[in-house]
């Protein structure tokens, strides 16, 4: 039963991809859209069925093997898919959010001339993400990993006619590749040390005592795997591609660059939590990088005027939070934040999408304003997302973010500094998100001339569903502290559900400090939100004064720390230079000279032999006779013996 379910789950996106792929020239959005969404919907239904199957399964695990993929010597990897608590949640998120986004993009892409192609890419992305998530061994995951990278490239560069969009696609792909190289090296290290790559066996074979120092095999492997994760989930060194990835259509950004793909790195670490636990140093690295990314990205987010850029940087910073959580050993809260973030970030992206769609592809916030009255549904759903992300109590964001901050503070792997980074990040997030809200919704009308109206049901329905989810998702994982206070002590559903397979540290700090921290984070968020509201609605001039005072700092942050330029200068130009040198003196002079030498030699000995082939039969006959005479002579006179 499971096998058929799983195969339907995996195959429907592929079929969708093929059908749309074949008729990629058709202009009819209705047909292409319905096929794509239908495929996503079917796989969503299957994942729900699978979820209940896993729930019912004795050890909460469903392992289905389709065929032997590689078995050479000791390495034998099968196309074997594992559905356990973590991956069941993930497929739910992927297929659920995916279906909503497919629905949304039917409305969004209605003027596009290649809808079938778009939907086939989306379906293909779904398939790859499912493979990545359901893989029971690292190589199979890597297949999904690559497939997802490919789809992101295809979708970012969807309007490849525009040069810069194509360049953005290329950039995303190359940075991902760098990350993938790290992933590969990590895989090889693991295989070299443990001889196997399947998650189950790896987790069991982990030594109990954590390794000390940096040279340990598991540490190195985890480090490399982390590099892979940074590439995919856009952390400090390799995050440059995500802001540029906004060049793609907004639903794509929503699906890929908010909800699913970017979370792959975190999913991988959570999946291999026992392995990472063995390498505390790597955990510390992860945490610090996560924290730093959160703060820096948030800072940049403050200065951005393009609505999608702001959301992109907020994604990067939220991912930084997740890595912070995972780095401090809070795997479950990290995963919980991943889930909630998927909902509200997707919501916000779709919201931005519907705004852009309504504003006829206008993305600059300064030109927007006062959309509250014109687009009420988008406004209200966006409002839910905003409240969730800054962490207002009843909303999802509050529960997951505070859990992370609490564990950053309390967990043995965490430290006060990490908590401080987290807090600063949270403050900045609150600030720029409210800035966005003011500029877009609350400010006064700047474009009265243009008729802006609410987008259609296909776009607003997903917004409403996601709005509801980002509001209620928080109650899935209520921390103990709060549940103790609340009547009826609602259990931490997600915590218990994930507890079977994911490592979780039992923290027993005092409840009071937890409450204190919670209160502290809420106040900070609220204060920064009011500050932003004050700056952008009441007195616009304060912001300008503030920027003049910190001119250089503001410029630096606005220019995204000149990271792109840095890369350009430090990596790309020297690389081109070296290759030029290689080309000019080595290739031209040395290699060509040898080939000339060889050819001249061939010609000369050719001339030499030409005399043999002069067509005169008698010379041929003579050589034959000579040959036979000499051999006969050699044989007959027994010189051989």
């Amino acid at each position, binding site marked *: 039963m499971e096998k058929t379910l799983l195969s339907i789950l995996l195959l429907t996106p592929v079929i969708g991809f093929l059908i749309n792929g074949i008729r990629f020239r058709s202009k009819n959005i209705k047909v292409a859209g319905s096929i794509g969404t239908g495929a996503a919907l079917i796989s969503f239904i299957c994942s729900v069925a699978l979820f209940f199957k896993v729930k019912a399964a004795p050890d909460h695990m469903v392992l289905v093997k389709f065929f032997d993929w590689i078995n050479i010597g000791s390495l034998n990897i099968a196309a074997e898919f594992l559905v356990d608590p973590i991956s069941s949640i993930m497929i739910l998120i992927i297929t659920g959010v995916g279906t909503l986004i497919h629905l949304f993009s039917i409305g969004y892409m209605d003027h596009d001339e290649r809808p079938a192609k778009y939907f086939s890419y989306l379906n293909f992305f779904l398939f790859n993400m499912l493979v990545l998530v359901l893989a029971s061994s690292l190589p199979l995951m890597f297949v999904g990993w690559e497939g997802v990278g490919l789809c992101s490239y295809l979708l970012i560069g969807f309007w490849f006619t525009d040069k810069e969009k194509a360049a953005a696609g290329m950039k995303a792909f190359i940075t991902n590749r760098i990350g993938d190289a790290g992933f590969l090296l990590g895989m090889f290290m693991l295989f070299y040390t443990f001889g196997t790559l399947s998650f189950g066996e790896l987790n069991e074979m982990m030594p109990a005592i954590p390794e000390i120092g940096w040279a340990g095999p598991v540490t190195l492997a985890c480090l490399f795997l982390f590099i892979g994760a940074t590439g995919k989930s856009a952390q400090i060194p390799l995050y440059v591609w995500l802001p540029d990835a906004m060049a793609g259509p907004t639903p794509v950004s929503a699906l890929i660059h908010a909800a699913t793909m970017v979370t792959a790195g975190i999913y991988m670490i959570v999946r291999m939590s026992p392995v990472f636990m063995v390498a505390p140093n790597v955990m510390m690295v992860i945490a610090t990088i996560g924290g730093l990314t959160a703060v820096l990205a948030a800072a940049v987010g403050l200065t951005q005027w393009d609505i999608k850029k702001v959301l992109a940087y907020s994604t990067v910073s939220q991912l930084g939070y997740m890595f912070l959580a995972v780095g401090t050993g809070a795997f479950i809260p990290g995963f919980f934040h991943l889930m909630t973030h998927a909902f509200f970030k997707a919501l916000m992206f779709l919201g931005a999408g519907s705004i852009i769609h309504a504003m006829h592809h206008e993305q600059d916030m300064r030109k927007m304003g006062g959309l509250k009255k014109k687009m009420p549904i988008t406004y209200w759903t966006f409002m839910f997302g905003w409240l969730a992300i800054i962490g207002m109590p009843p909303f999802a964001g509050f529960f997951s973010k505070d859990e992370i901050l609490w564990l950053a503070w309390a967990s043995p792997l965490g430290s006060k500094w990490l908590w401080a980074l987290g807090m600063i990040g949270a403050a900045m997030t609150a600030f720029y998100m409210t800035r966005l809200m003011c500029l877009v919704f609350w400010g006064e009308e700047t474009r009265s001339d243009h008729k802006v109206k609410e987008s259609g049901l296909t776009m607003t329905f997903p917004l409403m569903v996601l709005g509801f989810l980002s509001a209620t998702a928080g109650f899935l994982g209520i921390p103990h502290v709060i549940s103790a206070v609340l009547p009826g002590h609602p259990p931490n559903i997600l915590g218990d559900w994930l507890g079977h397979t994911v490592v979780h540290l039992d923290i027993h700090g005092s409840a009071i400090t937890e409450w204190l921290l919670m209160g502290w984070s809420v106040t900070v968020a609220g204060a920064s939100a009011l500050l932003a509201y004050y700056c952008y609605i009441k007195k616009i001039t304060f912001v300008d004064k503030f920027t003049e005072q910190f001119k250089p700092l503001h410029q630096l942050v606005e220019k995204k720390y000149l990271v792109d330029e840095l890369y350009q200068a430090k990596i790309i130009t020297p690389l081109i230079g070296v290759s030029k040198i290689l080309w000019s003196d080595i290739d031209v002079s040395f290699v060509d000279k040898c080939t000339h030498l060889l050819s001249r030699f061939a010609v000369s000995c050719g001339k030499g032999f030409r005399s043999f082939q002069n067509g*005169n039969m*008698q*010379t041929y006959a*003579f050589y034959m*006779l*000579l040959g*036979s*005479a*000499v051999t*006969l*002579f050699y044989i*007959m*006179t*027994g010189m051989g013996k």
Partner: protein
Amino acid sequence: MSPTIFYSLSIVLVVFSLLVVLCKNPLHSALFLALAMIDLAFIFFELKAPFIAAVQLMVYAGAVMVMFVMVLMLFDLKEDEESAFSGNPVINVFKFLSAGLLCWAISSKLFSYGDVAGLGAGKEFDIKALGTTLYTKYIFAFEALGLLLLLIAVGAVALSRTKGGTHDS
């Protein structure tokens, strides 16, 4: 197989074949070759193969050489150009040496195989035995040769009937 006859016949044969190779006028060499064939026929008589000898007379001496002579007469070549040997003399000498080497290579060890010499003389020739073996054991070769001859006939006629040139078709 008295030695005198054999030696005389072989000496004559060697002389004739040398003449065939060496004399300038191709017609003379053709006639010497005919004589060499006849001499060879006599050797075959010696080796108790009268039928083969007769066939040799009929086929080689009687038909092939006649054809050679006829063709030579047809061409009626003017024997004015210089040496009848091709290529420069140095290579010719070298060719002669290589032919000599071949000859010496084989004959050097020939007379050292003592035991083979003891073979007795063969029995009297009997045509019936020859006929039966030909038509039972070598039947395939026999039919194949029939075909070969047909092919050669067609080929030769086709070859020699090219249009133009001094010969009418």
